[in-house]
């Protein structure tokens, strides 16, 4: 997850690397995502979110679609559970 000067810079970077476009959004959305995701990280009560809870966080910030789908094809992590931990 990187911060670029503009979408034009994102496109140029992807072209140069031969990588497909990912998801782009504003720093304000990024702050809302970070706030929702990390605000309780230092709390003794913190625990990993369920897939439903993670989806609710993404939805609340307007991040929806296949890119944000934690289980697009019934994928599970190597530990055998849906992976909703942070990147």
């Amino acid at each position, binding site marked *: 997850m990187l911060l*670029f*000067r503009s979408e034009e810079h994102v496109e140029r970077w992807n072209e140069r690397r031969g990588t497909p476009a990912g998801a782009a959004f504003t720093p304000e959305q*990024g702050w809302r995502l970070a706030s929702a995701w990390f605000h309780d990280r230092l709390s003794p009560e913190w625990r990993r979110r369920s897939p439903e809870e993670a989806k609710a966080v993404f939805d609340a910030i307007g991040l929806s679609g296949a890119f944000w789908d934690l289980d697009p094809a019934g994928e599970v992590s190597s530990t055998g559970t849906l992976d909703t931990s942070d990147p």
Partner: protein
Amino acid sequence: MVASGDVDAFDREVRLAVYRTVVAESRPPSAPELAAELGVATEDVETSLHRLAAGHVLVLAPGTNSIWMAAPFSAIPTPFEVSVGDRHYFANCIWDALGVAACLHAEARIDTSCPDCSEPMRLEVRDGALQEPAEGVIHFAVPAARWWEDIGAT
């Protein structure tokens, strides 16, 4: 040896001790340091660290007992430096850099640069809000379902 019924509570204590050191010293503690702080055997801490890593609560440097990431913090320098007062942290990505401000509930300055043109970029958080103008575009290259296939690259 930690009794099996106490594993979750022990892992929580280890996790909290990791974050205490990271926040106070901008670096993660070693397993022996954690063991000394918690008054337990180093091997119990190492086992706990590996359980936490398996649960994606922490990331260990490959093949070691050393903490690489305690999200949103990075143990190694990255292009995402977060200044909180006179303390400086490194974050794993721009989401995590904002996450440092969010988890500390503190005013913070994030310094990074555009990966395309290397132009320095700065975001600031004050009074619980991102300060305007917050210029730029955040780009996630890897879909959410694949974040942990290669967490270092993600």
